[in-house]
């Protein structure tokens, strides 16, 4: 009755269990051992990991998670406290390990349409940049996808 597929820890922790409503090709977020420890592309993280991140101290204003410089991250979680303003939409995303604030700037019609589909209680995948405000991390989103295939 149940699937007996082999468990792949890499895809599970890359958010592979949730399917976004739009098919988007993300850049490879798995760093190669042969390359430097600088992050390439988008890194899937938990809010717990973000809470333990430290700022890299260089001019790139990136964060360090598990020894890797991280700027762009992706988080999958449930939306809470969505608040719409004329220039942006803010909300909290809860992935079970914690809650973090997110802000999606709304400048084009595409941005408005994307955020209209997002409601409290929905599962979404956010892709954005880690930012620090008053010693508190947040995510500046440039993409917010609803998850319509929750398997």
């Amino acid at each position, binding site marked *: 009755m*149940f*699937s*007996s*597929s082999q*468990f*792949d*820890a890499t895809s*599970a*922790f890359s958010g592979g*269990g949730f399917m976004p409503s739009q098919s988007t090709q993300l850049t490879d977020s798995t760093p190669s051992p042969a390359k430097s420890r600088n992050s390439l592309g988008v890194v899937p993280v*938990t*809010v*717990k*990991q*973000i*809470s333990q991140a430290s700022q890299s101290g260089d001019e790139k204003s990136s964060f360090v998670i598990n020894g890797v410089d991280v700027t762009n991250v992706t988080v999958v979680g*449930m939306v809470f406290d969505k608040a719409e303003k004329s220039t942006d939409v803010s909300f909290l995303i*809860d992935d*079970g*390990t*914690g*809650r*973090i*604030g997110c802000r999606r700037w709304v400048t084009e019609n595409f941005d408005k349409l994307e955020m209209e589909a997002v409601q409290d*209680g929905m*599962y979404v995948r956010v892709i954005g940049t880690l930012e620090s405000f008053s010693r*508190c*991390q*947040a995510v500046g989103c440039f993409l917010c996808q609803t998850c319509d295939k*929750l*398997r």
Partner: protein
Amino acid sequence: MDTSSPSILVNGESLPLYFGKRVRAVVQVIQSDGAGTTAKSTDEHQLIIKGLPVIPPLNFVEVIGIADSNQSVNAEIWTDFGSTFDTASYNQLCKLANGEFKALFL
């Protein structure tokens, strides 16, 4: 940012470890009558989920709530995941989230 109230990923085997704590689990509905829902965890333990509405049998639902016994959860939030779900991967995720990779979650 707030990590003070996580909901711990559990299956039937790990649920007893978190009595009184907020947990989250994906279960398959066996019987739902409004008073209490009998469900099966991804490692095939029978659980009782309280506070759910009537959900079609065999549907998978994610439940977030307080573990109030070794085999029951008092649901606060629920999400219907539909009729298909990769239970093997989720079950392995529960094991890893409570074991080798616990630091990523708690």
